[in-house]
């Protein structure tokens, strides 16, 4: 996709930070320039729900003063970003919480608060379907947030992934996405569309930028029950080089196979789990989202029908799904023993596919692997088509550095935006 950012500096976080630190670009000028096209998008049906320009201008002024006296806070200092309306932003009533009377007292979600801490600037709240489109099942997609990043209007955005909706949006719109290991990012203030499934995910223009953002938003949080008690540190230079990895290609794709061969990646055989991962994910998500959002679903489009179906699921179904989930997790651990990375080519036909039917007919191993990775809480990285196929990759839990180093190398091999990142490793 051609890059059409209002400012070329928005192309990468490293470039943007260099321009801000050198004084070539002032933070307030950046916010003004970035806000203009976003305001055009803030119309009914547009990608942006609200532009937080005044607040961002005040924060940008602080950044200018800090940089003026030599105080630096890393690559995200002064970087504007987008937030899906499924994450709470201070002073704004959460779109997903019908019980919240007004915006007074509403605080930031944990990932947004961490980004504010390093003086990144939340500039736009991106539009999301009602309740993230959970009622649409595998047709749900965080299109707006992905589109804003893919068009270069913002360098990165945060969105909520509950069934691969962010991964699919990135693959369809043409930007990168990283869904981290479940629990690595605190779920506080993030719409609980699935208590054991939904997590904040990062949309950006390169694997390196995804890693930089995840480094800042991860960490333990006593308010989040799945927090592993440790933070992710982006250090791909210490991860294994692609030539030391083994990858399994889930479906044949000649262009991807050639890219893997160029990088010297060893190949491993792939065999599927033989378990209905898509069905398990659908049942667990419906049980968790239906219980948590019963009153909101009553008034959402298609929500009443979805709620009736979800309420028809029994405790037996949920428990059986969770037991199958354990088996799927064991399969992924075993697959990760043979291959460090599972690489999955992705075509546009998948976006409108009936996943349940496709899985039942063993016609979509890509759908099964995506669902299995989400169920197991494994990290996923989506890469847009750049001189070849779009693809996503799965690594074992907490192996984000390996995954991101691999993705950067693949971006470079296909002439994408990760070239600079690979050179510095």
């Amino acid at each position, binding site marked *: 996709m051609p890059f059409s950012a209002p400012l070329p500096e928005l192309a990468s976080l490293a470039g943007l930070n260099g321009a801000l630190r050198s004084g070539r670009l002032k933070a307030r000028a950046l916010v003004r320039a970035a806000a203009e096209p976003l305001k055009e998008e803030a119309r009914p049906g547009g990608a942006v729900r609200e532009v937080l320009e005044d607040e961002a201008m005040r924060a940008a002024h602080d950044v200018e003063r800090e940089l003026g006296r030599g105080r630096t806070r890393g690559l995200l200092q002064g970087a504007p970003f987008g937030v899906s309306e499924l994450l709470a932003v201070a002073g704004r009533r959460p779109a997903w919480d019908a019980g919240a009377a007004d915006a007074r007292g509403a605080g930031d979600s944990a990932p947004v608060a961490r980004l504010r801490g390093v003086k990144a600037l939340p500039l736009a709240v991106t539009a999301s379907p009602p309740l993230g489109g959970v009622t649409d099942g595998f047709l749900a997609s965080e299109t707006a947030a992905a589109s804003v990043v893919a068009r270069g209007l913002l360098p990165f955005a945060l969105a909520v992934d509950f069934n691969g909706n962010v991964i699919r949006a990135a693959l369809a719109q043409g930007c990168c996405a990283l869904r981290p290991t479940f629990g690595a990012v605190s779920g506080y203030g993030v719409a609980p569309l699935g208590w*054991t499934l939904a997590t904040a995910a990062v949309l950006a223009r390169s694997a390196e930028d995804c890693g930089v953002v995840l480094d800042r938003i991860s960490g333990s949080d006593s308010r989040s029950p799945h927090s592993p008690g440790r933070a992710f540190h982006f250090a791909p230079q210490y991860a294994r080089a692609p030539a030391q990895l083994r990858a399994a290609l889930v479906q044949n794709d000649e262009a991807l196979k050639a890219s893997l061969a160029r990088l010297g990646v060893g190949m491993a055989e792939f065999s599927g789990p033989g378990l209905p991962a898509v069905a*398990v994910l659908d049942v667990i998500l419906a049980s968790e989202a239906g219980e948590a959002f019963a009153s909101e679903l009553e008034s959402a489009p298609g929500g009443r029908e979805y709620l009736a179906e979800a309420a028809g699921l029994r405790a037996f179904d949920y428990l059986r799904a969770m*037991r199958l989930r354990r088996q799927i997790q064991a399969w992924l651990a075993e697959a990760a023993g043979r291959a460090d990375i599972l690489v999955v080519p992705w075509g546009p036909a998948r976006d409108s596919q009936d996943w349940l039917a496709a899985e039942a007919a063993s016609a979509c191993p890509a759908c099964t692997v995506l669902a299995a990775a989400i169920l197991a809480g494994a990290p996923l990285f989506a890469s847009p088509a750049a001189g070849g196929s779009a693809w996503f990759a799965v690594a074992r*839990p907490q192996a984000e550095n390996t995954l991101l180093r691999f993705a950067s190398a693949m971006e470079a091999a296909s002439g994408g935006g990760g070239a600079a990142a690979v050179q510095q490793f």
Partner: protein
Amino acid sequence: MKRPERITRRALAASLAAAGLSAGAAQAPRGANAGAPAGRLRLAAARIREAAVNKNISPSFRFIP
């Protein structure tokens, strides 16, 4: 002593219609799929009921084994 209320055929038909049933229609036995949702989730639930599960596996779940 209060006399039992007489249920007429017409009143019964009206009650059944209000419940979405028709008079004289046989009721399906409440078997294994009673209360199962119609549509996508019903299919998903049916698929997981068919899948073989190891008896030794508990539903408690840890993301980072």
